[in-house]
């Protein structure tokens, strides 16, 4: 059943790649890159999930419960979730850098069209 998550992640990745390859607007290309990042997060968290597992946060259980009762047998893989957390933080910085480059292109060439920018470059 978790295979469907992998397929959906692949579909979102392909949509982002399509946007990057075919759109002419530079900000739309950056949106495609954001979609590819989002598909990566989905894939990593789906790999971390095991069947009927719960969150790997077992500290401070509520009254009358032990950590083993909270886990109910299995927890998801915390290492991959931490990878995903780091990837989200790096991804927003990466998007900010790309958007800064796009704004500089718009200020310098007075257009956001990638083809026109290439033509003006010569």
């Amino acid at each position, binding site marked *: 059943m978790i295979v469907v998550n992998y397929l959906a992640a692949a579909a979102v990745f392909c949509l982002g790649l399509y946007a990057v390859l075919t759109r002419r607007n530079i900000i739309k290309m950056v949106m495609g890159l954001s979609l590819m990042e989002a598909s990566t997060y989905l894939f990593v968290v789906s790999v971390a999930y095991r069947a009927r597992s*719960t*969150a790997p*946060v077992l500290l401070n259980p*509520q009254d009358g419960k032990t950590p083993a009762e*909270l886990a109910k047998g299995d927890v998801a893989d915390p290492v991959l979730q931490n990878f995903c957390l780091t990837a989200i933080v790096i991804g927003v910085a990466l998007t900010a850098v790309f958007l800064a480059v796009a704004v500089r292109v718009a200020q310098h060439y007075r257009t956001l069209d990638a083809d026109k920018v290439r033509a003006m470059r010569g």
Partner: protein
Amino acid sequence: MTYAYLVAAVAEIAIAAVLVVRLALGPSISDRIVALNVVSTQAMLAVLLFAAYADRTVYLDVALWLASFSYLGTIVWSRYLERGLL
């Protein structure tokens, strides 16, 4: 009772599918912001119901953040519409 919560969460997300249509074909940006606001509210309800189903209190904070940030985002975007963000 917990299974009823899960079914209700599925139904809330299925209602959000109607709003994604309005998000896709809304003629002006205000329509899209309205639809996005309702999608956030439905997602918050789904998180709350899923937390009650899974019997984990850790999930509840996500619902609180989602609710407060969705309305904050609406106010920010209306300010962007009215005066420009900078």
